[in-house]
């Protein structure tokens, strides 16, 4: 690799090797455990739908019933389809309803019953996976028909009213104003719900609940906008929190295009148990791989709690780990929206050059990934004028370093949820910079041995050192000790641990069998 930074190819290869060494034990952990959310995702793919009158989804009721009778470690597919045959029911949702009423007993089937129930569950889940395949083919068809945005980066805008019926016109207006990707921010706290709410929702806190129906409504609205605008407008949501696998399944079923999905975000920022997160994450990424969804990782978050200069290398390390876990789960490079952010304190001398060095390093380390470039938040204040200037520099760095997805920064970050006018001003800012300097990356070649090259080499060097230290112990220990983003998260603590189980010898998961059998 002889790019603009003159990175040492041996060192880059070493970094990847070390990331694999640090990640491999975690993958092993993920392959030998399951979680309630993985099992619920399997049931969703098998066709269980809807919720009880209290709003608790039938997949939750069904998994809880199976766990109460036989535990989680066998996987729920075989016990559920065994019971379905014994009860002579045709519909798994009906079985869930009976199970919730306490009128079904679950067993771990053995012998011929085991073979039959496995085969039946595989057939049902395969039908769900086929639906995901059809939605992916549909996306490819629509992209061909309407076209992709004419230039990179894609412009990514956030909508977050709490009410899906308010979000829809706002999202359509944003698309008309130039957004290529719309993200519907989730309600604060949804990541800690151990179930996926049902139906269209009109109340949320600083965001809108992610539900299958909300996904469907928004995708349909953006299809309308795509037709109107002559470019395919992408929809983004979150496969994070306690229901990561189910979110991935629902996103695949409703043709979402990008999903926030980070390997460590839930652990560090939501205090979700590390094992739960890694197990859920692997399954969700397998689903994303199949669905042709681009994941967006969350490295920007580290820099909101840690210093963007001192901790720049932790971003690189996390990107390398995210890449390793993503490849292992079957995602291709074009699906890796690896995150990073413009968060260097603007009062630091040469802050713009530091940003350029960091952004270019990510670009050159991951040449085929559509990097996700995140705007300043930490150093945004109520001074909206200065904020708009900062956002302009952020846009410039994005243009100079060939970022794939640009999240539009708002000058009122840290002041209010964006107003209509804030969004308009922000888009003007983006359009001006991309219009005036969109091709400047051709001319932008940092001086050999100069400040930017040196800084990039330094960050890569620190990243390799950190990976070496992690490799000597393990990634779980490193997280436990607070290596990333300051927070200390031991493996035996955190939310959702009670929903994790080690595989029994006869663990069966038809979804994983299908997704892994398919290859990448």
């Amino acid at each position, binding site marked *: 690799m002889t790019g603009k930074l003159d990175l040492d190819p041996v060192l880059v290869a070493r970094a990847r090797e070390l990331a694999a060494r640090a990640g491999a034990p975690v993958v092993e952990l993920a392959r030998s455990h399951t979680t309630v959310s993985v099992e619920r995702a399997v049931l969703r793919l098998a066709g269980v739908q809807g919720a009880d009158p209290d709003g608790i989804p039938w997949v939750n009721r069904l998994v809880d019933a199976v766990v109460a009778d036989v535990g989680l470690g066998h996987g729920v597919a075989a016990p559920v389809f065994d019971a379905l045959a014994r009860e002579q029911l045709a519909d798994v949702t009906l079985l869930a309803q009976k199970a919730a009423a306490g009128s079904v007993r679950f067993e771990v089937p053995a012998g011929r019953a085991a073979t039959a129930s496995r085969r039946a569950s595989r057939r049902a889940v395969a039908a769900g996976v086929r639906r995901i395949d059809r939605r992916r083919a549909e996306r490819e068809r629509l992209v061909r028909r309407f076209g992709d945005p004419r230039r990179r980066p894609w412009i990514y805008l956030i909508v977050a009213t709490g009410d899906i019926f308010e979000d829809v016109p706002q999202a359509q207006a944003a698309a*008309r104003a130039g957004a290529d990707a719309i993200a519907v921010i989730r309600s604060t*706290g949804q990541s800690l719900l151990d179930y996926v709410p049902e139906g269209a929702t009109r109340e949320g806190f600083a965001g809108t609940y992610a539900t299958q129906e909300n996904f469907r409504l928004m995708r349909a609205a953006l299809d309308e906008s795509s037709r109107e605008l002559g470019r395919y407008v992408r929809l983004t949501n979150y496969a994070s929190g306690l229901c990561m696998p189910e979110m991935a399944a629902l996103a695949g079923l409703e043709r979402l295009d990008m999903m926030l999905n980070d390997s460590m975000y839930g652990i560090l920022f939501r205090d979700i148990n590390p094992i739960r997160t890694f197990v859920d994450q692997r399954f969700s990424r397998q689903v994303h791989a199949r669905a042709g969804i681009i994941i967006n990782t969350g490295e920007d978050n580290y820099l909101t709690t840690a210093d963007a200069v001192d901790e720049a290398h932790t971003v690189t390390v996390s990107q390398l780990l995210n890449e390793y876990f993503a490849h292992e789960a079957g995602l291709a490079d074009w699906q890796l929206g690896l995150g990073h952010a413009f968060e260097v304190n603007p009062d630091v001398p040469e802050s713009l050059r530091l940003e350029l060095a960091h952004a270019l390093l990510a670009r050159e380390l991951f040449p085929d990934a559509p990097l996700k470039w995140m705007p300043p938040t930490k150093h945004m204040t109520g001074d909206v004028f200065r904020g708009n200037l900062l956002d302009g520099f952020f846009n410039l760095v994005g243009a100079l370093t060939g970022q794939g997805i640009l999240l539009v920064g708002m000058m009122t970050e840290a002041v209010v949820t964006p107003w209509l006018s804030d969004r308009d001003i922000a888009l003007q800012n983006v359009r001006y910079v991309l219009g005036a300097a969109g091709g400047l990356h051709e001319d932008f070649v940092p001086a050999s041995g100069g400040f930017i090259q040196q800084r990039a080499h330094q960050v890569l060097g620190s990243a390799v050192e950190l990976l070496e230290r992690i490799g000597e112990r393990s990634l779980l220990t490193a997280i436990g000790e607070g290596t990333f983003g300051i927070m200390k998260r031991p493996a035996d603590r955190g939310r959702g641990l009670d929903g994790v189980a080690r595989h029994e010898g006869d663990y069966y998961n038809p979804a994983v069998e299908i997704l892994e059998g398919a290859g990448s």
Partner: protein
Amino acid sequence: MTVVPEKQVVRPYGDTTGDGMVQVSFTLPLPHDKRAEGAAIQLAGKMGIDPAMLVHARPMGDGFTFFVVYGRVNHLVDTAAVRVVERDFPLLSAKEVNAVVKRQLRRKLSVVGACIGTDAHTVGIDAILNVKGVAGEKGLEYYRELRVSNLGAQVGVPDLVAAARAERADAVLVSQVVTQRDAHLHNTRELSAAVREAWPAGKRPLLIVGGPRFDEAMTAELGVDRIFGRGTTPAEVASYLVHALITSRRAATV
């Protein structure tokens, strides 16, 4: 030496004393045309801006127009009638805080902090508590004589109360950023009620809330001891803790 008396009545300053010039921007739900511009001037007039200069009008989407208006505002500000919460305690350095705690409390001062309710924005509580601190100033974890337990985001009120009991908290710090539907106010009231239920009167820990959207004068209404707003530093919080828990109490009992 002559002392220039502080002016009591002032007007906004554009480029000459007393010119009263202000600049505002807003959006009206009207398509951009002459009428919309007239409407913007009318609004500016009602805000006390006269004459109002409409310097920028820009259509946004369907049926909205963004305006920037400059003009002379005819209101006067009487600084004598301004009511704010001034800092009523001395600002101490980390060293001084440690010294007071060590000498006068003779044990570690226990602080429990969290974001309560559904609020996941730990930026505020972390800035105050984490060693990392904010703007180059170290957080309370850095203070040797403080024992800090940061429970992080989305902590339930009962869990916070339980943790405060377990840690024998001298003070409970809560940060609230999300303000949609006044969530920050509801959560704070819930906390103050729970704390009053859990401890006998006079024995409860000091209750401190912080966040960018709190009105610092609402302490009584919310049932807390102190509210810290935007821009609060760890040293201010630490100094307040020492003042409220140690120095002012001793002064009262001596």
